[in-house]
């Protein structure tokens, strides 16, 4: 049941299994989720939708919680601005 598909992370294709979250796809691509207000790279901390560190842009919608959204085929994920 582990079908695989491709999503785009900061322009590069990443193959993920189904039921993979967007935050995991970012980590697999070695990309930070967002720059902090003073410009530090940040990635997920709590993994459960509390800390808001995994905010990313998903299909051009900014500030989405990467740890609570599942990847879908062809999804376009970018580091948040």
């Amino acid at each position, binding site marked *: 049941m582990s079908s695989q598909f491709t999503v785009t992370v900061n322009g590069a294709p990443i193959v*993920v*299994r189904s*039921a*993979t*979250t967007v*935050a*995991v*796809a970012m*980590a*697999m691509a*070695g990309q*930070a989720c967002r720059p*902090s*207000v*003073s410009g*530090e*790279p*940040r*990635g*997920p*901390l*709590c*993994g*459960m*939708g*509390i*800390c*808001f*560190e995994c*905010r990313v842009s998903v299909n051009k*919608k*900014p*500030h989405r919680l990467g*740890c*609570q*959204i*599942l990847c879908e085929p062809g999804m376009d994920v970018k580091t948040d601005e």
Partner: protein
Amino acid sequence: MSRAVRQRFDLLVVGGGPAGIAGAVYAAEFGSRVGIVDDNARLGGQIWRGASEAGSAASKWIERLQSSSARVLHGRVFQQLEPRVLLAENDDSIQELSYEKLILATGARERFLPFPGWTLPNVMGVGGLQAMVECGLPIQGKRVVVAGTGPLLLAAAAYLRQHGAEIPIICEQASWADLARFSMALLAQPSKILQGLQLKRELAGTKLSPNSWPVAANGMSTVESVTISRSDKLETVPCDYLACGFHLVPNIELPLLLGCQIQNDCVRVDDFQRTTVAEVFCAGEPTGIGGVELSLVEGEIAGLAAAGRIAEASSLFGRREKLRGFGRSLDRTFQLRTELRSLPPPETIVCRCEDIRYSRLRDHASWREAKLQTRCGMGPCQGRICGPATQFLFKWNPDSVRPPIFPVRIESMAGFKHDSTFELCEPTGGR
């Protein structure tokens, strides 16, 4: 485009973890019209997370919920519209949920403490990293230092090892004496002994070091090593991930918003899990950190009491009392040692949302003053991470909460105006 959805329930349950599921199942089986709302992609809360293992207690409970008449809703509750009406939102709808009775089963989160480098990518919570692996993160062959305090450390280390991670060391801040006392207390809990023995087998060969804690995570763009204090000596351990959390804190923002009385940072409840607000019950970790079995029995009692089955609910008091003993021993064992207050040097970031450093906070008298002067705790997480940290570091008391208790889309605040624009509505904080 968002839809506005209005639904009415006899009983609404907020939180789809063990306590919420048990409450919803019991009330639904006695004929109440029940709704249960949760913001995660899968049911089961942080502890079960969808429960893929067939035949497990988790999957049995989830199946029981799914075959009950309870309606499962996906959404995050962010505000009270009027008495007995809550607002929730998800990607494609804004939900107006009205109820006669309410069970709050909002669970707990990890407590994080700031130290140099804790903001580096790949430094995560203990449960946080486990959640990431459960959601597909490949961990095979990765070196993970596990650190902090609480029973989660061992459980997560066993899980990560099972999935191929290498665990160079588990750093537990509690002392051997505390851990030994804790093991003795477990003897009163047969099910916990079995879990303990299983963990011991799964962690054979892994180094568990008490009196130990991380003092710095080192690396440029991601963590590369961790410096730990181990029985007063410093030691640096190379790693790919640092999983670090200091036990759990209850999620009490929604109970606070509804006016429930809080006692020792937990929601105050009576024998029937009733809060101080009429027709509002609370079950599971928000009433005190006690683990999954206690959460289940509290949920059962709340569900039965909400359905008016007082005799059935009373019959469970004895079981709950036994399990509460375990909760009390958790509190004693995993109390934070005072040395951890000196973990952050002045330049360490304490509030990760607003990048507020320790030096800007230490001279303030209270959480409220620090918020007003520095914006600490006023970013998107609304102090959920830095609040418990500053409570420990500076002994500040938590503040009241202001709606919305989570950042929401502007359209959700504007009240059902159909509009596809998606923006974060920054919380205003407790002014």
